């Protein structure tokens, strides 16, 4: 019985992790940026979504959409105000751009965290689930919301796969991750592609944030942990590998759930961290990494 519960809970949280990690990998693969403000974007989406659903009285569905929009706006701010100026800056030597972008996004993440804490206080909030009620799966009582989250995550992942593999725009994204210069030679506007990637990223991160708020609750103090778990998953799976991130998300999600259920909830993040250390020592390019 508990095994089934672990299976279901683990699946839900892993799907959520997968969504967040996917956005992170996407941005790294195409834009070359490790966005350390990732957790911040999720938190913004969650808090704004909660605020508009509750205080502004927009109701859960509209609130969720507003939250996702807030995520997209924050992603844009990250790109247009921090990442792009640093990448284009002539004062920074070329080799150091990566490092400065990392530091810049880290600072932005902190600004987001503290700014949100100032506006909303750092108490964690939960959003009303989009679908309330409980379902029984083979005798295990599961909130329907959990099932819906897993379904939504996979639908979005599926849509993303369709976009990248079957549409012209999506294929240009894939090409941009492989050879940006070659792409410009073919006449594609790189700046538009980057804007598109950051928009998609904003939607993914925003959605993950809002869903997390309805599942486990989100507070400004989670921003750092969310970023940390996203890149742990991505490093585990292999930077730049989408399937690696998905696989790693499920490994981490299940490891955490099993630990929480069978050992102790407080030790939740430990096995994933240990696995990460192991991978770093033994196979630094991650499970399925190619770069």
């Amino acid at each position: 019985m508990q095994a089934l519960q672990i299976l279901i809970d683990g699946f839900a949280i892993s799907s959520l992790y997968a969504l967040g990690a996917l956005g992170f990998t996407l941005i790294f693969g195409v834009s070359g940026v490790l966005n350390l403000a990732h957790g911040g974007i999720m938190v913004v989406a969650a808090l704004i979504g909660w605020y508009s659903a509750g205080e502004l009285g927009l109701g859960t569905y509209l609130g969720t959409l507003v939250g996702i929009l807030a995520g997209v706006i924050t992603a844009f701010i990250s790109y247009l105000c921090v990442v792009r100026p640093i990448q284009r800056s002539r004062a920074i030597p070329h080799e150091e751009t990566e490092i400065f972008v990392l530091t810049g996004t880290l600072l932005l993440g902190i600004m987001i965290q503290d700014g949100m804490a100032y506006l909303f206080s750092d108490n964690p909030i939960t959003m009303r689930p989009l679908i309330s009620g409980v379902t029984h799966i083979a005798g295990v009582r599961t909130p329907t919301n959990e099932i819906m989250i897993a379904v939504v995550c996979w639908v979005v992942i599926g849509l993303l796969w369709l976009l990248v593999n079957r549409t012209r725009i999506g294929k240009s994204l894939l090409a941009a991750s492989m050879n940006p210069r070659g792409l410009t030679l073919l006449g594609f506007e790189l700046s538009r592609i980057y804007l598109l990637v950051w928009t998609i990223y904003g939607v993914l991160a925003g959605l993950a944030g809002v869903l997390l708020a309805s599942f486990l609750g989100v507070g400004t103090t989670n921003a750092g942990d969310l970023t940390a778990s996203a890149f742990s998953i991505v490093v585990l799976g292999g930077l730049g590998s989408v399937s690696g991130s998905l696989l790693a998300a499920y490994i981490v999600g299940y490891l955490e759930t099993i630990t929480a259920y069978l050992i102790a909830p407080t030790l939740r993040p430990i096995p994933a961290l240990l696995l990460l250390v192991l991978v770093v020592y033994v196979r630094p390019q991650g499970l399925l990494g190619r770069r």
Partner: protein
Amino acid sequence: MIKIARSPLLWFAVIAIAVAALLPLWVSGYILGILTVAYYYGVFSMAWDLLFGFAGEVNFGPTFLIGLGAYGAALLDNAGLGVPLSMIGGTVAALVGGLMLALPALRMRGPYFGLVTLVAVLILQNVIVIFAHFTGGEIGMTVADVLSIDTNVNYWYALGFMVVCGIILFGLSRSALGLILQASGQDPIEAQALGFNVTKHKLAAFCISAIFSGLTGTMLVFYMGAASVGTIVDISIGVQIIIAAVLGGRRTILGGVIGAIFLILATEFLRPLGQLNTFVVSGVALLVILFFPDGMFGYLLRRGERG
């Protein structure tokens, strides 16, 4: 020799140190306390700059090394080893931890290295919390011995320590090792082609950074008389160190001191803003990165070079 004596930088530094040493005569104990912490942060930033500005490796978890030093010393002192041995023990712990971190981390390029250092801090944080029985967990632990109870004496300890570390680190940066590190950081392939063992030199830089960070961590723990996750290991502390080094100017070593003093003082005086003071400081740091990537000190130095 005469050339050094004529150097404006040297005279500026000597005057600044003299003024700083005499500050306890005019300034309140409160400000002295803030400056004491700022001086220790200055050493953290200088050690960080050696790794970042020179070896080109961004260490997102300087608090991993600091935490090992501080907690190592605290645990040893509570076991009864006394201050000097505990400080040595703590520094050794930091060095060992640094080596264990550096060996796999240096096999990776840029972003991987940074991420691994960040993970190291997370692991240390979790280990401290799990073994709360020994380490006091999130509440922290206290040490029986302190360096001194007198504010002035603590201030002079910190100032003296910072000056000595500054001289050593600055000297290292201007030495052959520093030049090789710069080359390794900016163009590792060319440096290797010239016959320098890039990995060995980066490892050396990491060890030096670890030794200084760990030692300063022990000084900090014996100054505050306590160690806790929130004051020593937390990622926000690491970020402050990074901000201080970048604000001051990367690749200058001494800029770290200026940056740390500015940062700590600014955070103190912005305290009335409450939650927003970190926001403002991070915002300023971000603006500096965008518009003055060389930092305050670096900007002055580079202007001098070009002018």
